[in-house]
């Protein structure tokens, strides 16, 4: 079953072409790792999927719904595609529990009691149940990102988008976030991950995509591509991040 379908998608910022006729199909259950130099369009590609960026040409379907559809369609897509941001973006006026319980109450019409009960289960899953009453500024970066993952999962998405989820974290805090992501992948969640964590791509990814100048330059199995990259620029890139 196709979860995400890019059909000749293009995106410009002013006169800069960021996505240049991208074609891409992602099946349910895939864990796609997107890598590439900065400015290659990988974050933009991810943000087009939940329509945080609007596309200028082509079409993009998420679980059969077009991002060019009505506002209601776009909201539906966003409820199917949870997003985790580089800067966590937790709601600072809410505790960890409230952050996680907020989405379902807003968009799924879940009762407060029900939403909080589910939020507790999710916080337990990311190992932060005992921190449920702490505010974001009382949590470490790694803890904040795990709460953010729980918040995205709370609306029961079919697909999870990760935009450089560990790039703002100290090296010793990255592992706790990557472990949660790995658990999620092992449960069969469809994931698209923009990252520089090559070891994550190797261990958890089912597919690796290398982007360059708004194109998909290389697309294949992570281990093969990492061990025997035939594309010289991918080889070069791996040497720099690895």
């Amino acid at each position, binding site marked *: 079953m196709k979860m995400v379908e890019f059909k000749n998608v293009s995106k410009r910022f002013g006169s800069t072409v960021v996505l240049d006729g991208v074609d891409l199909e992602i099946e349910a259950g895939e864990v796609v790792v997107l890598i590439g130099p900065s400015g290659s369009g990988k974050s933009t590609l991810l943000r087009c999927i*939940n329509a*945080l960026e609007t596309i200028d040409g082509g079409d993009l379907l998420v679980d059969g719904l077009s991002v060019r559809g009505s*506002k209601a369609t776009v*909201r*539906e*897509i*966003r*409820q199917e*595609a*949870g*997003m985790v*941001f580089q*800067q966590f*973006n*937790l*709601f*600072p*006026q809410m505790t960890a529990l409230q952050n996680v319980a*907020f*989405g379902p109450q*807003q*968009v799924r019409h879940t009762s407060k009691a029900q939403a909080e009960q589910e939020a507790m289960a999710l916080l337990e899953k990311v190992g932060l149940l005992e921190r449920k009453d702490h505010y974001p*500024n009382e949590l470490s970066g790694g803890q904040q990102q795990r709460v*953010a993952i729980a*918040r*995205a999962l709370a*609306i029961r998405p079919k697909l999870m988008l990760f935009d450089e989820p560990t790039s703002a974290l100290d090296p010793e805090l990255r592992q706790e976030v990557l472990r949660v992501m790995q658990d999620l992948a092992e449960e069969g969640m469809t994931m698209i991950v923009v990252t520089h964590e090559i070891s994550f791509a190797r261990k958890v990814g089912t597919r690796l995509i290398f982007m360059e100048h708004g194109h998909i330059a290389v697309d294949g199995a992570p281990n093969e591509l990492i061990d025997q990259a035939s594309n010289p620029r991918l080889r070069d890139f791996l040497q720099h991040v690895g």
Partner: protein
Amino acid sequence: MEFDFSVIIDALPALFKGAQLTLFITVVGLVGGSLVGLIFGLMRAYGNKLINSIAFVYIEVVRGTPIVVQVMFIYFALPVIADIRVDPITAAVTSIIVNAGAYIAEIVRGAFLSVPRGLKEAGLALGMPVWRVLAFVVGPVAFRRMTPPLGNQFIVSLKDTSLFIVIGVGELTRQGQEIMAANFRAVEIWSAVAIFYLVMIGVLTFALRAVENRMRIL
């Protein structure tokens, strides 16, 4: 000269009456002004070109003219050009609404736009409609950031009511002026009037501080 407290005692009933009117104009004016400010501030921050321009013109006209001119216009010019006749107190309240509204609009705009864009995106990414994101995600953070400049504007507006002496509203300053014209005890009366303002603004300041202490600024 001698400071005669009995002059102040005698003046107290009139000054209290004036202070009451000052408070009435300020409170009603600021409730209205906050509402107007919220609407026009959001129009400036999130409106399309047309809506934004409308709000911009309103704000610039108000900020570009003195409040005394504004109240004179409402009280003396509106009856001539539009046949709208209002009593002095209505003119005074309207002036505060219109005047404070423009300044508060800029405070609202600044506060909403100062909230990191990521928060809005995080709300949108959950599939919430924009108005809900503004009301429940960005708004609460923006509101906390608004309290210091809002407090400033409240104080300014309270003191601006003294200018309504020009249209004969019997607020605190006007009361002082009238008593003084009868007994020529300038030192006692203006000291008393000043203390009345100080107390009112002191209470307002403490109230604002209490609000700020109850919530951390994020």
